[in-house]
């Protein structure tokens, strides 16, 4: 599902970059990316959804080579990838429903189907009763579940998460992890970048450790 071959990336001013990354993530895998701050976790995720292009090497996502894509092709790739962030990136002047529906609007779905699918997703996340609230009124855990609903509502092939639990307490962390696992069971490939040790211990199947822009360790565990 995801392949990186000899990927190099250097920012102009920043020292943090990627050096010779080789990584293969199969369909339906659940992978944690970890490492200290500045190790290149976020940069690696940004490569995967086409926000960055490497200086050297190839990035293949869902069978498509991102390095050879035109700017017009990137949006089409992103429709099969859901992304969540530590700061949620919600639109605070819109309701919970509108924040999630935006994914389906972009795909061109009809109004009635958007309504049904969005409410179904909100129900799965346990926030369907708050569909008409402005997202600012929600707690951190609820906001992250809205962000997850937005990322998962079109059943993406890949879910990328960048420090998704960084702003959450333990109870909320567990809920979020459960949602990741459920999405993974339904067939979505999940890549989570985090340095939250507890999250990794509870959830990890495969762990990739980055340091100073290089992969320093890869561990696999049989039981989830």
């Amino acid at each position: 599902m995801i392949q990186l071959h000899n990927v190099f990336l250097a920012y102009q001013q920043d020292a943090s970059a990627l050096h010779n990354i080789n990584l293969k993530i199969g369909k339906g895998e659940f992978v944690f990316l970890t490492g200290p701050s500045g190790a290149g976790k976020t940069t690696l995720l940004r490569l995967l959804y086409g926000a960055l292009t490497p200086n050297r090497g190839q990035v293949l996502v869902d069978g498509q080579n991102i390095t050879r894509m035109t700017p017009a092709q990137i949006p089409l790739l992103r429709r099969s990838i859901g992304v969540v962030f530590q700061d949620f990136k919600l639109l605070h002047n819109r309701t919970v429903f509108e924040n999630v529906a935006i994914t389906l609007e972009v795909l061109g779905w009809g109004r009635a189907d958007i309504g049904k699918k969005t409410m179904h997703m909100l129900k799965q996340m346990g926030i369907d009763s708050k569909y008409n609230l402005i997202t600012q009124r929600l707690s951190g855990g609820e906001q992250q579940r809205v962000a997850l609903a937005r990322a998962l509502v079109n059943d993406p092939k890949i879910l990328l998460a960048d420090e998704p639990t960084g702003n959450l307490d333990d109870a909320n962390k567990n809920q979020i992890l459960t949602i990741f696992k459920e999405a993974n069971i339904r067939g979505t490939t999940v890549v989570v970048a985090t340095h939250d040790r507890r999250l990794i211990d509870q959830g990890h199947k495969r762990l990739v450790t980055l340091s100073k822009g290089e992969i320093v360790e890869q561990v696999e565990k049989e039981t989830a």
Partner: protein
Amino acid sequence: MNKWKKKPPDVNRTSRRPTLSGDGFGGRAGFFLARALTNIRQNVFVNVVTVGTITLALLIVALFLLVFVNLESAVENWSERVQVTVYFDKELLPQEQTAFREKITALSGVSRIAYVSRDEAFKRFKGRLRGQETLLEGVRSEIMPTSFEIALKSAYRETASVESFVTKLKQIPGISEVQYGEEWVRRFNSFLNFMRLLGALLGGFLVIAVIFIVSNTIKLTIYSRRDELEVMSLVGATRLFITAPFLLEGLIQGLAGSLLSLALLYGVYEGFLHNAGSFITFNPAASGLSFLPLEYLSGLLLGGALLGFIGSLTSLKRFINV
């Protein structure tokens, strides 16, 4: 063997779209318009600020135009005083009058020509000396010269054109004395050129200032909504999908701003400007300032809409990296 029946799993997952809203151009345009209106509803404050800025900026331009247009028509009135007079020291016979009239009108630039007889000239002279008629006691109309008064078309009222017209006039046999108030024509024309230069400079600066202010306001409002642009691009929206509602919003803001500014201008005009005319024209007979002609009004409307649209377009370019 039966490889056509074997479907790779999950290949259709993201393309499972029950019904598509707004197929075709009409549906798309409808969707974008609805989106733009929703955006306006969701960002009332930002929109009020933008429309207010556009309104005030265009109101300044419109007021300037109103003054300029009226000044120009006043100047047009004055320039009608540019007149060439051909004098004769005898009364012309009707055949002679016709002959001269034909020869003079044959020159290019003549808009009107009138013969002033001795009696007519004497009457005018008397009129000018009203209250002091005693001065004219014993004086008869025979002392007055007769003349042709020639008015020129507006394109021929420049100093150089008047001079070349006079030269040609003098070449007509029988015409020797021609007067055209050289000094006045020269002064009037340099005043006219000065006015035009001033108008162009002021107008140019105003338009540049307006474009600068409006485009920066729009840039700030779009900057304040860059999260929206980012989220849209994250969920896979194409450039058109992201920008179209913003561009429509800019268009609506521009139109609303220019309409409001024209309404305000009309209010100001009706309120006190329309009877403040003698101010500019120095002509007590004029009934007052006239309102902007239709071409200017539609130009302002179109300008406002374009300002909103292009302002949004250039601002969006900075914030979208899809």
